[in-house]
């Protein structure tokens, strides 16, 4: 192997010239990648990690983006001044890229085969037949069954995971030296994410391909990366080996970031540590250290910019902080711990605020199957689900997308009329008629805080509206006061009442969403993926806010999410769903500590833990295949088609939920010890 690094980037700068100013999206970034190495670039959205990758490939729009660098050497050759055509010869041939959105990254009107053979024909000048053979080989390699048939199909006939496999196949087609993967699994479910990452890692290991993986998911980094670059506000604040970054973080931002992530592997310790505030606006970044405004260790020295310095010679661990030694030593304690403030919420299991018995939500669907005929079927989005929610309790609802967790929420709210089952709210029956009476007591927070807020109303108007409609506060002055109070309660400022949703950040908008739910003084809030669109540090802030509000107001939450760690952190009780059915239900600690059901175990295994030692040490069950079509679920146990412990009986019997221990139920016939 050559001594020379495969990719050597020195002082890379990218500027975007926009109408209202210049944004330096990447500022003096330098790093190296060796052959076969796995580098991860982590950071929150807007920190410049994707731009870094795109600028290496020179895929940024030339009209607005200006790239400068001392040099970017690829295999010894400086590519900064290469012509477009020379660059084109490198792209796809020696360096390829996998993008975040598998749904939109493939051309919808061209066949998979066409798109896969394109680089082969362009770069390797293969004949069509040769290219086709190679394409079949590639599809086999990325684990797509029946590759011959698949080649003639179009992207819309592939699932998201399958498309990402195709993207990987395209990336690998010409056996490049480097693959840049930009958030390749963010849009995918955990089980699929695990499959894809394993695949990528495995193939690259075998072929000796270097990987630059851009991600915000620290778990993914911990699981796979050799080296990590941590970026903050267009700069690298810390870089080094994965074990150093996770084990001995020495930049306050890295420390904060790691602490903000809810952990599955640790007991619920209390409030999440948060980094206060928001990343700076790159149009007008703060002078000096850019983390200074949010840093607990900030001092006057920080008014000048710290250089990225190696902590110890030869260690290859660099930090851009004047107080890195100090930070390294103190670790997490640099953030004021508010463990003291934390009192566990005690739930009185007296009378449930919400009681769900045998809830069913079936959708009739029909679609054309050809020759003027149509097939109709029933999708059992929710099939016989029962649980209780007590005042002040948080019930987590987890599962892969399509498992029916959102349908549960919608059925409870009567946004869709439930097909069957019994719902009780405060011991009163909840049906189409009575739901209007309790609407005020049952609120909802949506995933996308932007699309759920009317862009033409100010925050004040948005919050006042329900008060007006429900005639809770008829007096105008009182209403205004109430709005100020709500804004304060969710950590915003009363002056924000006059702003419009687009003027707020994602986290602030979600706070507004929470304030809107709170203004009705509800008994229960159904939170549908409330934090999944947010960055890690902001996510922690929102979770803390929800917990504080629960403690203060005794609100119950039905917390629907796909992120297992978040659910674990916030929930008292957890329900695991698969294809409309409950697989396992129980206390949060029990479920995560001693999962019974194979599906729960697989889910937990698939979610990477942000600690390289633990992550790499543990044994994992990786689920094969994808979620079956809900129109045609497997017979017997719905999970049988993907279960690693499947037996003949599983395909015959639909398992009942069995109580194992103190309200810990699981639906599997192969678990011993059920009562």
């Amino acid at each position, binding site marked *: 192997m050559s001594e020379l690094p495969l990719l050597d980037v020195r002082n890379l700068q990218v500027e975007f010239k926009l109408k209202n100013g210049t944004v330096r999206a990447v500022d003096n970034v330098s790093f190296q990648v060796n052959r076969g190495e796995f580098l991860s670039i982590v950071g929150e959205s807007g920190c410049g990690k994707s731009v870094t990758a795109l600028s290496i490939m020179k895929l940024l729009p030339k009209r607005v983006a200006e790239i400068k660098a001392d040099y970017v050497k690829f295999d010894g050759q400086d590519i900064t001044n290469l012509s477009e055509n020379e660059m084109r010869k490198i*792209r796809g041939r020696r360096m390829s890229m996998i*993008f975040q*959105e598998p749904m939109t990254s493939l051309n919808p*009107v061209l066949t998979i085969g066409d*798109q896969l053979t*394109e680089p082969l024909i362009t770069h390797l000048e293969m004949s069509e037949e040769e290219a086709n053979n190679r394409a079949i080989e590639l599809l086999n390699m990325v684990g797509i069954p029946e590759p011959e048939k698949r080649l003639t199909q*179009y992207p819309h006939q592939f699932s998201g995971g399958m498309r990402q496999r195709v993207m990987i196949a395209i990336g690998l087609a010409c056996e490049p030296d480097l693959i840049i993967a930009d958030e390749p699994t963010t849009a995918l479910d955990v089980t699929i994410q695990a499959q894809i990452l394993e695949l990528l890692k495995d193939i690259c290991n075998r072929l000796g391909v270097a990987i630059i993986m851009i991600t915000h998911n620290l778990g993914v980094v911990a699981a796979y990366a050799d080296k990590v670059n941590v970026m903050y506000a267009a700069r690298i604040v810390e870089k080094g080996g994965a074990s150093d970054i996770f084990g001995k973080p020495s930049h306050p931002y890295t420390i904060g970031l790691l602490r903000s992530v809810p952990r599955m592997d640790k007991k619920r310790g209390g409030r999440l540590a948060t980094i206060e505030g928001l990343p700076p606006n790159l149009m007008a970044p703060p002078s000096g250290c850019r983390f200074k405004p949010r840093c607990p260790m900030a001092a006057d020295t920080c008014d000048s910019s710290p250089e990225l310095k190696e902590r110890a010679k030869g260690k290859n661990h660099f930090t851009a902080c004047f107080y890195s030694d100090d930070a390294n030593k103190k670790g997490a304690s640099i953030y004021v711990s508010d463990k003291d403030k934390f009192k566990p919420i005690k739930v009185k299991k007296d009378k449930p605020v919400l009681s769900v018995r045998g809830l069913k939500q079936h959708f009739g669907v029909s679609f054309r199957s050809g020759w003027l005929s149509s097939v109709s079927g029933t999708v059992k989005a929710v099939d016989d689900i029962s649980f209780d929610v007590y005042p002040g309790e948080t019930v987590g609802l987890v599962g892969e997308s399509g498992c029916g967790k959102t349908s549960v929420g919608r059925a409870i709210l009567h946004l869709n009329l439930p097909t069957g089952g019994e719902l009780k709210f405060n011991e009163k029956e909840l049906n189409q008629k009575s739901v209007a009476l309790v609407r005020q007591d049952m609120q909802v927070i949506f995933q996308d805080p932007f699309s759920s807020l009317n862009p033409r109303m100010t925050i004040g108007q948005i919050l006042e509206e329900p008060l007006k409609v429900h005639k809770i506060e008829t007096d105008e002055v009182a209403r205004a006061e109430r709005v100020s109070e709500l804004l304060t309660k969710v950590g915003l400022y009363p002056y924000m009442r006059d702003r419009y949703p687009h003027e707020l950040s994602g986290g602030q908008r979600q706070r507004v969403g929470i304030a809107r739910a709170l203004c009705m003084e509800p008994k229960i809030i159904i939170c549908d993926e409330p934090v999944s669109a947010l960055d890690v540090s902001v996510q922690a802030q929102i979770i803390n806010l929800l917990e504080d509000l629960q403690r203060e107001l005794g609100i119950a939450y039905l917390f629907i999410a796909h992120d297992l760690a978040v659910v674990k952190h916030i929930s008292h009780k957890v329900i695991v769903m698969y294809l409309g059915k409950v697989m396992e239900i129980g206390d949060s600690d029990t479920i995560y500590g001693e999962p019974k059901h194979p599906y729960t175990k697989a889910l937990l295994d698939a979610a990477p833990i942000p600690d390289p030692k633990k992550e790499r040490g543990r044994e994992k069950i990786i689920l094969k295949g994808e979620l079956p079509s809900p129109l045609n679920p497997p017979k017997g146990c719905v999970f049988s088609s993907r279960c690693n412990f499947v037996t003949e009986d599983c395909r015959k019997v639909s398992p009942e939920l069995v109580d194992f221990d103190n309200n810990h139920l699981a639906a599997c016939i192969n678990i011993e010890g059920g009562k």
Partner: protein
Amino acid sequence: MLAYTIRRILLVIPTLLAVAVLVFFVLRVVPGDIVEIKLAAEGGIISAEEIQKEKERLGLDDPIMVQFYKYMIGLPRGDLGISLWTENNVSEEIMSRIGLSFELAILSTILAVLIAFPLGTISALYRGSILDYVIRIITIGGIAVPSFWFGMLLIMLILATFGNLPPLGTISIFDDPKTNLYQMIWPALSVGYRYSSVVARMLRSSILEVLSEDYIRTARAKGVFERIVIVKHGMRNALLPTVTVIGLEFAFLLGGLVVTESVFNLNGIGKLFVDSVVRNDLNLLQGLVLTVATGFVLVNLIIDLLYAALDPRIRYQK
């Protein structure tokens, strides 16, 4: 694809039937009396009795439901009744003129596409350049300027350049293609200008939209030649909305023919339309509306099929 095609074709029948019924009754609400207009054209001394007789002869004093029955009975056989003005078969009157309108429609569509595609593509690829602005001004003009006015401008232009106008009277394209094209190119241009402007603008914006799509970035990341990126990956996707617009604009084209044929003294169905309205020739009018509706439905059928051919998602889903 075949099933989709057949289903789409079968859907045409109820659509046209609905049009036929609607047209019949709507036209009967329009006031006016063809016999009166016809007989009293230039004054003359005509008794009420004569008018009544003429009405009876033309079947105009039948109860409306009887007239409707006769009309509906005739439809499946392609019998649209007789023109109340000339007393010839309506279908004959239409057939003798439809060729010209058809040629005009085809010619202006071809012209529109020929103009729109280069303009739209150049405009999109050189966005923000002077060229782009010039093209955008030209195309906004096409949308803003009414086609009859543009037609009149064209006539003035021909007069100023050639000193005379193309000869009147239809000359078949098969007998004398040169003269025929010299006659037809101007009206085709007058209709096609608007048509091409709309299409060019649509094409421009859809190319711009498509070029910012993720799969274009993917194609570039694959190291594909830029030309191929634009033509193979870009254009085909950009064509989808453009094709829809071409189909929708065909409706305006049919409307445009009405004025343009009058401006250029062309003997097509557009002019026949105007004549039959002026004369209150209801039979002819309903025949014409039905013909135009059929044309519109057929064109949209073709567009739908074309769309399905271009977009696999439609082909496979339905």
